[in-house]
């Protein structure tokens, strides 16, 4: 179980001013749950993920996993980053995915086997020996997912993983991700600004307020799995989507006003 308990994160601006990124986040995520976090840009969504990954410590409050505070980054919490610069450009696709198992002490033969298994899962067996720069954006994102899964993590942290992809590739990868999630007991913490994506993927949806971010509203999403394209046309889907949209719209307006105020 993952818990955010009254978590604040305050950064320092270069001028030494305090800059609150997230404010008083409280959130409980069950084991095996698929959670999406939505919010206007700059609201601190990624900050929450960074604290959960262990890249940063909260300024106050606690982030707990199974009742103990999150420590240094480790292989139990895999991260799929927003952009493909997180791929190791100097390693081939296969070597990228082997990295985790090797880091966790597996021998090369075993690491290779794990890598191939996970790359097969995302349909990249034909690209084992290629470098990331030779792949399309969608394929690079799939390598990131395969690499994150290779350590068999308990928690998968995904920071707008499909944000830069075209609509078709995005849909395909969303379905792939659901498939992978359903066949495992992995907990997914998924950040996005795409409401449709959130409703399609997750069991619970949390919308954050504009900067400094806190949880504005949460929904249980009881649409049945497996979910497919047809579901997107259903009324329940659209109703939930509209509700969430409304909530996020208000926050986006606030965020935009903040930005304008900054410029003026």
């Amino acid at each position: 179980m993952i818990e955010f308990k009254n978590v604040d994160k305050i950064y320092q601006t270069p001028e030494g001013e305090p800059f609150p990124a997230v404010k008083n986040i409280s959130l409980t995520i069950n084991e095996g749950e698929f959670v999406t976090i939505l919010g206007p840009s700059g609201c601190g969504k990624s900050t929450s993920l960074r604290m959960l990954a262990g890249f940063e410590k909260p300024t106050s409050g606690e982030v707990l996993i199974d009742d103990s505070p999150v420590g240094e980054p480790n292989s139990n919490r895999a991260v799929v980053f927003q952009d493909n610069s997180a791929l190791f450009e100097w390693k081939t696709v296969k070597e990228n995915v082997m990295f985790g198992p090797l880091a966790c002490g597996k021998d090369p033969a075993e690491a290779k086997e794990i890598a191939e298994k996970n790359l097969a899962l995302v349909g990249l067996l034909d690209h084992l020996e290629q470098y990331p720069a030779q792949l399309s954006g969608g394929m690079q994102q799939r390598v990131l997912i395969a690499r994150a899964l290779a350590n068999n993590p308990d928690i998968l942290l995904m920071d707008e993983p499909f944000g830069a992809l075209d609509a078709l590739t995005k849909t395909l990868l969303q379905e792939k991700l659901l498939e992978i999630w359903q066949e495992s007991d992995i907990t997914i913490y998924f950040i996005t600004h795409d409401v449709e994506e959130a409703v399609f993927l997750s069991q619970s949806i949390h919308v954050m307020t504009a900067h400094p971010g806190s949880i504005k509203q949460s929904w249980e999403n009881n649409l049945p799995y497996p979910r497919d394209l047809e579901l997107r046309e259903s009324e329940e889907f659209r109703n939930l989507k509209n509700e969430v949209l409304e909530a996020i719209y208000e926050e986006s307006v606030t965020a935009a006003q903040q930005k304008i105020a900054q410029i003026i």
Partner: protein
Amino acid sequence: MNQSFLKYKQNILRGTSIVCLFIIWWLLAEVGLKSDLLGFDTTRWPTAWQVIQAGHNLLTEQLSTMIRHIGSSLYRVLVGFILAAILGVPLGLGIGWNQIIRDLTFPIIEILRPIPPLAWIPVILIAFGTNTTMIFITFIGAFFPIVLNSILGVHSVEEVEVRAAESLGADGMMVFKEVVIPKALPSIFTGLSVGMGIAWISIVAAEMIAGNYGLGYFIWSMYNTLNYSQVVIGMILLGILGYLCSTIIRYLGVKLTPWTKFQGGDK
């Protein structure tokens, strides 16, 4: 327009460029630009034909001396360069990655770096003698670009790459070996290639000033004995050697960083 025609046109243009070089040379040496008032006279330059004859002479009658000149320069450059690489790359990686190493060594480097390699000649000469001085000069010439580009290479490592490695279970040592070093490698090779160039520049000047062998010394002594055709032979040999050395570095760079050839293009 088709591919082969474009290629053909390109070859014609490039050939013309080389022919022009020889025509300009011929005009300057044979016809000449002269001015008593301004005190110049390019007819003192040897013609291409004289240079070819001189080259033939050197190769047939003084081959062993020439080999010794070439050998000395090459030896000094390679030893100095290799020492610079062996010390400079690890030091640059260390400075780039570790705050303590940076604070301990970077001030020294920043103080010594602006001193031109040739300015070191007297102090090294009085303590170590000619041969060591020559190697030291190429070393110092190659060292700074190698260190600085290695530091830059480490700085090109992005936070997200380190985060990714850590969240995949890598410890500090593995991050350094598997992320920092390969990421820095293209920049390290830029440093090696610049360092090689400066090593050659430094050795020629150093040998002119204080050498007793080597191509720089050869050029200077030929100049002093009015053998201007031989001077040009020395220049050509230096050009060839410099080209060979940087080609080897470039070849190694391409071999060791195979991923770079896919970058920067369309994805």
